[in-house]
């Protein structure tokens, strides 16, 4: 089959690799009909997530048709049209039983490795480094999925791939980002980053009762997308964020903020340069936490900082003084996708959320390297690339 393969820092390519097979009786093989490039794939491309190896198949946002199931799979059958959440849930551990599937105790085959870095191991994730299990990803024509009964969600007829594909990651991620803000009716929410997750956070914030959403980015075309969803735009290259947010909120600051950017945020001035240099060394600092710093400084006293953006290692100079003295709350985590799929599916069916508005590019799998390029460099007004693994 054809698959997108990590070939080293800043290099991905489409290669012919062996087809996946059932390796354990709870597995299922999915013939992928749609897959997407995620913002967090860019951290892999840029080489900031450790334990990537040449030849790893990327991709953790994919859906398709079940073509083979292991002998212990009961609920899923060949022919089912399914989406595959990016975190892998075993379904049996305490975390899975409590809808915290991205913290699953049992699905990470390399838990030892992750424990060394994080103290405790998070769940396995498809196509996302050996730290999260080293599982082959879904930017390919086929994928092997684990614990099929617990992970594959059947999609009702009448919904297109575009409508449901983002249920695998970014839609629940944006939703959990907003949910973690603990929005009270009429609250003002600031969202850093108007990429796919930021845009879904904006949609979700309104859905959860926010009165106003202020969207922060530096690309006018992305800010325009946010405005189209009802948010107010703040371009941080033209306006200082803290002052801009104070002006818009009567000096109070937003009630909560969402960091939908993560470890490769862009800072301005000398501080930004210092972090960029330190991160390049991989040793002095692995994460560039500009957004996190700004979020802590600009959120109102007693407010909430929600972090769906991915961090991988260590960041410097987090303003802990502001965090403590302003009595802030921080909530974060990889998304517990399984918990949110049913309710988000309902929102989609009812037409309350239209996930397709963020799609800017449709490419064949062969063109995926180009997709990575324009997505990373924000060229051609790229917001989200959807890939068709079977197109020529």
């Amino acid at each position: 089959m054809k698959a997108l393969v990590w070939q080293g820092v800043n290099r991905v390519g489409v290669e012919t690799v062996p087809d996946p097979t059932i390796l354990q009786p709870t597995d299922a093989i999915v013939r992928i009909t749609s897959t997407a490039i995620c913002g967090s794939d860019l951290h892999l491309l840029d080489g900031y997530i450790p334990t990537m190896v040449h030849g790893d198949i990327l991709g953790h946002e994919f859906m398709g048709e079940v073509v083979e199931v292991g002998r212990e799979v009961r609920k899923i059958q060949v022919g089912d049209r399914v989406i595959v959440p990016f975190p892998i849930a075993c379904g049996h551990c305490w975390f899975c039983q409590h809808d915290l599937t991205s913290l699953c105790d049992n699905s990470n085959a390399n838990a030892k490795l992750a424990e060394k870095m994080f103290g405790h191991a998070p769940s396995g994730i498809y196509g996302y480094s050996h730290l999260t299990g080293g599982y082959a990803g879904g930017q390919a024509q086929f994928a092997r999925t684990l614990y099929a009964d617990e992970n594959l969600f059947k999609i009702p007829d009448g919904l297109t791939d575009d409508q449901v594909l983002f249920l695998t990651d970014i839609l629940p991620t944006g939703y959990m980002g907003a949910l973690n803000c603990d929005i009270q009716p009429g609250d003002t929410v600031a969202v850093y980053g108007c990429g796919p997750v930021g845009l879904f956070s904006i949609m979700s914030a309104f859905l959860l009762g926010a009165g106003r959403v202020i969207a922060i980015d530096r690309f006018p075309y992305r800010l325009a997308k946010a405005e189209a969803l009802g948010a107010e735009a703040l371009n941080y290259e033209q306006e200082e964020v803290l002052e801009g947010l104070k002006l818009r909120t009567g000096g109070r600051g937003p009630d909560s903020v969402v960091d939908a950017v993560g470890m490769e945020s862009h800072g301005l001035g000398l501080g930004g340069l210092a972090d960029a240099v330190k991160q390049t060394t991989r040793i002095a600092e692995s994460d560039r936490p500009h957004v996190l710093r700004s979020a802590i400084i600009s959120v109102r006293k007693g407010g909430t900082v929600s972090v769906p953006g991915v961090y991988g290692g260590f960041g410097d100079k987090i303003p802990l003084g502001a965090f403590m003295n302003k009595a802030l709350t921080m909530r974060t985590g990889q998304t517990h996708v399984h918990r949110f799929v049913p309710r988000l599916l309902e929102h989609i069916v009812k037409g309350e959320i239209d996930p397709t508005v963020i799609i800017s590019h449709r490419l064949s799998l062969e063109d995926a390297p180009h997709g990575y390029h324009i997505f990373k460099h924000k060229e051609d007004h790229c917001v989200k690339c959807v890939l068709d693994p079977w197109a020529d």
Partner: protein
Amino acid sequence: MMTVSQFARALGWYSVALGTTELLAGRRLAQVLGMPNRTRRIRLFGTRELVHAALVFTQPAIGVSSRVIGDVMDLASLAAALKFEHPARTRVGVALGLVTATTVTDTLCALQLVGAGRPIGGVSPTAVRRNAPTLLQLAPGALIVVAGAALYAMRGSTAPLPQNVAQRRARAATSGIQVERAITITRPIAEVYAFWRDFENLARFMSHLESVRVKGDRRSHWVAKGPAGSRVEWDALLTEEEPERRLAWRSVEGSQIMNEGRVDFRTAPADRGTEVRVRLTYQPPVGALGAAFARLFGEEPSQQVDEDLRRLKRLLETGSEPTNGGQPSGRKSPVTRGLARLYDNRRTA
């Protein structure tokens, strides 16, 4: 500019300073270098330094040459102390650096003093008055830098040893392996206890075991993987049995590898299942077999037991361990395959 003879006198004063220090502060110096039982040797070396000084002031060429010989003795003593488990390795290393720099300086100076073709001890008069060559001119500066680095490295020398050094020392001191680890398994305590009580199950999750066969009510026969495909076998006796609370066992007298184990079970709070806390002690025999057996546990025996307990948890909670072995990848070279294997845990239950 410094002449060669001035330079030689400076080296003489170096000997005076070092010799006095070694004589008067021998005990402290020995402690700093992590060799407290070498105080006498350090004092002897101090006396030797004073002899060097006396020679340098009277017979410069012989004196400086004798310093070179002394340097070599210092180098040998320090190098002998530079073992992996030496607690003050860094400090010894720095001292080695200082002595090495001194040796180079002494040698250069001695070569200048002893003119080519002249008998040892005969000082070339021109050499004495001649300005020292550039290399020698730079030597004092270099020596001061190295000495500064040495002092810096030895600062706070009474502070406790770094923890990793202390741990390494402790591990070297005890020949046995003792590990205590805990895990929570989301299954009822009765099930977890029953699984463990059937000792034959232990080989399903303890990676160093090949098999356990129950021979009677309290006796079982254990087979562990030994070095190079061999096996180590012993009989164990159940020594404690408190249903749903505790199990303990011990190898019978005269076993090749004396070992004992204890596991405590406790219901975890709320609906979290069962807490399992395990303590294993192995006393491998001295010698090659014991060393090889210890190696099976890897560098970090506790990590090995962590992995074993995780395997038990996965076995009981999901029936198996997840694997990524056998899935497709774009790897073509053995190097990248090896790297991926390094990261991936290929063991399956």
